[in-house]
């Protein structure tokens, strides 16, 4: 299934990325190494905005991001990720690391044209399909199923 995938998120240097579900902060630090590598000039760097609904986790992941040297590229926000983060939208890429029943509409609105979103869609019972969403120039949405995954449920207003 997933082994046929080729760079699902297609990240490039300079991309502005929204992550829903910061968890430990490890994802966003790794994404920072791709969109804003230390080896390239700062003027070319992209950045990551990552939303965490659980306050102590947001604080902890912020601490991890600072300690590992990514605070200049990653911003952690304690907020309901199911609503996205319109303040900094639109985003080149959106990555959702929790499972939703359906794609929360604000996330589609906050995706740039030609942007890509990855989101696990399915039940809360730890089986979902990883869906790749592309927004074309005319605003149309194309969905591709990349195969089975198991994530915790997306919580919040538009979660499950």
């Amino acid at each position, binding site marked *: 299934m997933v082994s046929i995938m080729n760079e699902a998120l297609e990240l490039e240097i300079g991309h502005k990325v929204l992550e829903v579900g910061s968890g430990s902060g490890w994802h966003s630090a*790794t*994404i920072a190494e791709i969109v804003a590598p230390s080896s390239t000039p700062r003027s070319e760097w992209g950045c990551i905005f990552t939303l965490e609904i*659980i306050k102590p986790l947001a604080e902890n992941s912020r601490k991890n991001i600072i300690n590992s040297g990514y605070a200049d590229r990653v911003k952690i926000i304690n907020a309901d990720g199911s609503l996205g983060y319109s303040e900094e939208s639109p985003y080149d890429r959106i990555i959702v690391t929790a499972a939703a029943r359906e794609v929360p509409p604000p996330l589609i609105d906050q995706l740039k044209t030609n942007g890509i979103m990855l989101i696990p869609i399915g039940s809360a019972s730890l089986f979902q399909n990883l869906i790749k969403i592309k927004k074309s120039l005319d605003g149309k949405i194309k969905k591709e199923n990349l195969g089975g995954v198991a994530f915790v449920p997306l919580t919040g207003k538009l979660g499950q």
Partner: protein
Amino acid sequence: MEQDKWTELINQLIRQGVLHSKKVKTAMLAVPRTNFLPEDMKSYYASDTPLPIGHGQTCSAPHSFSLFLG
């Protein structure tokens, strides 16, 4: 030494066909999970499983995260 266990895990993901891109490999090698785990979980950082980080949440298994990045 510690870094070697992480390198070994990343190479395993490549062999399994989960991780394809050189760019993603470089990024994953640069950021081992160690610094992002609670003290009592740090020693498991290079095992390919999700690890608890409190509040019912986990730090993803490296293979799951690789699926997102390629």
